């Protein structure tokens, strides 16, 4: 296809997705995309946005930096000519969108903006960089904890913002699922944290070690590749492998699953391998009870992993935000792989996980959990007193939630807790944490009885220095009810609250 796009009209057009006429609308979108959007691409997009999208604004010609990177270094070397241009689709939940309105009055459409998808001239994997807000495609904010970060899109100069986790489907030629997953991790991190530079798809292919043969077309990546690429990107990857090589019964190694969950709860995208397939875990949904999980033998606390119903997964074979459940879960999306993968992807089928950690997170979740439990055991009577003071039920299971967080995020939430807000009285004791000198990263274990936990409250927290080892560490501080403990001192704060807000910043706050 020879194109002369030099300085012609952008050809923006809005296609309304009327109920009952979706197929015709998508055929129109395919036409506007100039043949780039194939049937598989349509099905993939409709799988995610159908029922929510009311209008699609089509940019027929779009220069995508990710596709141009692949084009320049791979597709341009092929004999058959293909375009270096993409198309881009902007999704709106409002049927009244017009080109005029979208360009000249973006403020009126911002709430309806759901995100965008780049359509590449690649078959069959035409769905390129895609960012769609999960809360605008039917995911409920209630109990759906998911990584999102802001992405900006411009429509002829008008700025739109979407909060999402980035997605890219594999081309099955230049890229495989591992590249797509790794691209998502790197793009999420570079979009969220300025410390990471942006990398493009062919960078990942190029960084794949050639010792097992040529890198492209489609050679799978290895764990060594993962580790090397993430290290070169600026992360410090950690590998977790439940049960080592013995993986017959996952309940024999619940610690490893609690580690993986702790990283998800800490806001790290976790690359999860299922023997030949890899997806990224970016959050979880919750259930109200601990099901058949067992409490910690020493403290009788339940790790909050027991409350995880499903992990939220980004799998390049599907539109993002799939739900990975246990094997017995009829709604586990992994069942779709029954004919090709054994065992099918499920929470307990996890083979190995790779986590892109920051440098200064030296203390592992296993050791942080052990230390935190030991401290909590020492203050058990105070926890019971705090549960009573907070109006909790002393007979309920106590939930312990462990997460790693940055100093900046932690202090920002403590700062907000100092304010008096409707429904959230000022937390005087939050000022203590706010004023402390803290390391860049801390492990925090927060404890609450089940009902208060499900309502977003806790009655105790242990804060540990993530750069310390377990022998040199003493807690940064412990807060239980109205009592503060640090070093060799303890003090009751009579004006303090018995219960305080959980910190969920890593996966999004729900209280503003």
């Amino acid at each position, binding site marked *: 296809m020879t194109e002369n796009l030099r300085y012609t009209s952008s050809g923006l057009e809005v296609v309304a997705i009327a109920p009952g006429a979706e197929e015709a609308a998508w055929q129109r979108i395919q036409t506007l995309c100039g043949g780039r959007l194939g049937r598989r691409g349509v099905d993939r997009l409709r799988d995610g946005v159908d029922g929510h999208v009311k209008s699609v604004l089509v940019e027929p010609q779009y220069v995508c930096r990710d596709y141009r990177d692949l084009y320049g270094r791979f597709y341009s070397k092929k004999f058959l000519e293909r375009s270096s241009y993409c198309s881009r689709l902007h999704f709106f939940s409002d049927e009244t969108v017009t080109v005029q309105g979208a360009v000249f009055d973006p403020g009126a459409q911002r709430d309806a903006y759901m995100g965008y998808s780049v359509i590449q001239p690649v078959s069959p994997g035409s769905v390129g960089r895609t960012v769609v807000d999960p809360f605008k495609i039917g995911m409920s904010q209630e109990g759906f904890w998911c990584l999102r970060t802001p992405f900006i899109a411009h429509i002829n100069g008008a700025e739109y913002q979407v909060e999402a986790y980035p997605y890219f489907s594999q081309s*099955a030629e230049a890229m*495989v*699922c*591992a*590249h797509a*997953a790794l691209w998502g991790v790197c793009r999420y991190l570079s979009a969220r944290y300025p410390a990471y530079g942006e990398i493009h798809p062919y960078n990942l292919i190029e960084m794949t070690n050639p010792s*097992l043969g040529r890198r492209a077309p*489609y*050679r*799978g*990546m*290895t*764990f*060594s590749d993962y580790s090397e690429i993430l290290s070169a990107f600026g992360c410090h990857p950690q590998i977790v*492998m439940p049960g080592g*090589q013995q993986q017959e019964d996952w309940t024999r190694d619940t*610690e*490893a699953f609690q580690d993986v969950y702790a990283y998800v709860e800490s806001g790290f995208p976790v690359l999860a*391998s299922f023997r*030949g*397939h*890899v997806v990224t875990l970016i959050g979880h949904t919750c259930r109200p009870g601990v099901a058949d999980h067992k409490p910690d033998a020493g403290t009788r606390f339940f790790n909050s992993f027991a409350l995880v119903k499903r992990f939220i997964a980004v799998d390049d074979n599907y539109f993002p935000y799939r739900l990975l459940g246990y094997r017995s879960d009829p709604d586990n999306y992994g069942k779709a792989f029954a004919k*090709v993968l054994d065992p099918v992807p499920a929470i307990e089928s996890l083979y*190995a996980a790779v986590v892109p950690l920051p440098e200064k997170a030296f203390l*592992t979740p*296993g*050791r942080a959990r*052990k*230390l935190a439990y*030991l*401290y909590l055991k*020492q203050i058990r009577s105070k926890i019971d007193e705090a549960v009573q003071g907070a109006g909790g039920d002393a007979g309920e299971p106590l939930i312990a939630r462990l997460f790693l967080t940055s100093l900046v995020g932690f202090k920002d939430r403590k700062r*907000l807790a*100092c*304010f*008096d*807000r*409707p*429904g959230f009285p*000022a937390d*005087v*004791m939050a*000022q*203590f944490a706010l*004023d*402390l000198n803290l390391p860049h990263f801390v492990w925090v274990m927060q404890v609450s009885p089940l009902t208060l936990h499900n309502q977003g409250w806790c009655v105790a927290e242990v804060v540990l220095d993530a750069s310390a080892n377990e*022998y040199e560490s*003493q*807690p940064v501080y*412990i807060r239980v009810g109205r009592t*503060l*403990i*640090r*070093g*060799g*001192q*303890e*003090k009751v*704060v009579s004006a303090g609250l018995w219960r305080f807000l959980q910190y969920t910043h890593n996966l999004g706050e729900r209280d*503003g």
Partner: protein
Amino acid sequence: MAEKTPPKKYVRADEFFESPVPSDIAEVVREQVLRERKEAILDLATVREQEKWSLLANKIVGAEGA
């Protein structure tokens, strides 16, 4: 965002600890950790951290169509 009222005073961490009572929690836990380390034949956390991952090194994690 809901209306919010800032605190009237910035309270420093040390102000919370005027006239504290002593606490031995940190020391008790530290001694326990050291004791467990001495008694442990096999520390599972250490085993996990020091596990040799070479069995994974060349394992393909994702390939065409998967």
